């Protein structure tokens, strides 16, 4: 992710985990007119900004989306996928060290505005609907993450 290097993650494992539950999860998302990861949130992000955006989004998924899903009585198959995604997100976040230098302030602010767009859209929905939509949009997030994934 731009200046942030992440190693030790097999994106195909994340895709495999998501594909296993994609239909189940996306079927729970009844509000098709709204998208959390809007075009203004992810596309056209500079490399420098991507580290900040990735860090904010993944942290949100860990603290809010996954956590709430774990507390629901989800079926075994979803729990396994959640575990794979959550534990890899923890690994990624532990490697993402967004720069805290002053000249990065503007980039950091821009990234934060993008994240707020996502978070605001999430909060405008009922929590159950928001969780289903956020989890269902995992393919948008993984596709975006894949752009920064280089086969070393």
């Amino acid at each position, binding site marked *: 992710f731009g200046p942030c290097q992440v*190693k*030790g*993650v097999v994106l195909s494992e994340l895709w495999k985990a998501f594909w296993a539950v994609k239909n189940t999860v996306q079927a729970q998302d009844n509000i098709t007119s709204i998208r959390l990861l809007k075009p203004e949130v992810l596309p056209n992000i500079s490399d420098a900004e991507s580290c900040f955006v990735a860090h904010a989004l993944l942290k949100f998924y860990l603290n809010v989306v996954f*956590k709430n899903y*774990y507390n629901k009585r989800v079926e075994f198959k979803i*729990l*396994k996928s959640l575990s*794979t995604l*959550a534990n*890899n997100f923890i690994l990624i976040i532990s490697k993402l060290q967004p720069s805290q230098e002053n000249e990065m302030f503007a980039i950091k602010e821009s990234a934060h505005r993008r994240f707020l767009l996502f978070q605001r859209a999430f909060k405008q929905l009922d929590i159950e609907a928001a969780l289903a939509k956020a989890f269902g949009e995992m393919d948008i997030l993984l596709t975006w993450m894949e752009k920064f994934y280089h086969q070393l």
Partner: protein
Amino acid sequence: NGVAVLPAPQNLSVHSTNMKHLLTWSPVILPGEMTFYSVEYQGEYESLYTSHVWIPSSSCSPTNGSECDITDDITATVPYNLRVRTTRDSQTSAWSTLEHPFNRNSTVLMPPRMEVTKDGFHLVLELEDLGPQFEFLVVYWRREPGAKEHAKVVRRGGIPVHLETMDAGAAYCVKAQALVKTIGRHSAFSQAKCVEVQGESLPL
């Protein structure tokens, strides 16, 4: 009410080689019917964010052996807690938990098995298929004083790879090591295997 009547399994340990992870424990010997075990795991996320959540192992909940292949359960390079309990009818033992969390980056990496053959004048190599997380560094050379080594990265085992077109009468040798990018480690090189265009495979 069937709680903690049975003895719990002891001596849990994980044996991991080439990213295949096997959890083992000492069997619980009880008279009469067969004893079963249930295995559960918890990744770093679960232990940090939802410590009450344990996930049944894909292949061993239940099982009647005293080992469990947890490879498909360990899907991130983070520490995993593992626990086992004995079950029989409605009775269950207490959980026994692995003393130290297991991280797949501690797996023992062994050199890959390989077949070196010749197809006419073509030097052909087939490496052991160790799964999608493995790549291989292959080094080959013509066996003569001062010979230059050639290196090649092979992305996947289990398929023949053409290395070199050989000269008549010359002998060529090959060695390989396994690479796992997920954990940033590699095995030692295998023992070299040589073939001669007219001769059979000559072990060193």
